[in-house]
């Protein structure tokens, strides 16, 4: 039988995992709504919608890395590599939107 503390720890972990699952689904829905706001528009409304999608993408990645992948437990090198990868798309998406709005 596992010690009581371990059981509590596992319970907390399970609760976090379930909340993460719900949050990831909710944020996916929000992404679609945010992108829909910018649909058919040009200029800064579209930029704002794209930035919102980029921010939601970064938030979802953070939740997944923290609570599912548990990259921190893999050590600093792997953790930094995973974090760097997760930053690429949100940053590039935000920059692309700006570039497009400025008529690039």
């Amino acid at each position, binding site marked *: 039988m596992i010690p009581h503390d371990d059981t509590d720890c596992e319970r907390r972990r399970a609760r976090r995992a379930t909340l993460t699952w719900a949050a990831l689904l909710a944020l996916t829905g929000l992404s679609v709504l945010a992108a829909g706001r910018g649909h058919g528009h040009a200029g800064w409304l*579209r930029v704002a919608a794209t930035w919102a999608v980029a921010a939601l993408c970064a938030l979802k990645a953070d939740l997944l890395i923290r609570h*599912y992948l548990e990259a921190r437990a893999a050590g600093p090198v792997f953790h930094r590599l995973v974090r760097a990868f997760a930053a690429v798309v949100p940053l590039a998406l935000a920059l692309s939107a700006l570039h497009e709005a400025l008529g690039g």
Partner: protein
Amino acid sequence: MAPDAPAPAPPGATAPPARPPLPGHRAMWIGICLEFLEFTVFFAVYFSARWSHPQAFQAGASRLWTTGGVAITAAMVTSGWLLTRMLAAMRAGRRRAAQGWLAGALLVGAAYPLVKLLEWRWNQAQGLDAGAGIFVVVYWYLTINHFIHASWGLLGMAWGLGRLASGAYTPADHRGLESLAIYWHATDLVWLMLFGLFYAFA
């Protein structure tokens, strides 16, 4: 004494806190970092194409099937959640329950290829083939690559389920299952990026 054995700590010295063991196999962490590198190259292709053809990318996304993208996201994320439950059950020594969670993860994850099949039929009906412009070419390039990676994950789940049923894993050593979960979560992370690039704007 072996030449590379650590020297004994002097009496009274405090031992450094032990680092928690690496979840899964080190090779899997190296593998997912290589997967990330591969997709970073694919994303570079996406953004270089987008910077050169912004109009094609703004118009292109509205032709994709959002519902399909949302359904695949739900399948990936739910399957990942079931894998976390499988690992929790395994750590608690509940092997039968772990088998159930893993079977559930495989079943839910298998919705991905099914939705993909429907999406391909939708694309065919919309005329979204390789000749439909730069946006569609990049879309196919990235999503097919992701589909291949997810398929490896599903095969891994089937393999892990067989090994788990045969008693190959114990609560003390189930790194194979941890590695499987790490791979699936990494593939899920890539999908969340693809969703932001293609489906959110569809």
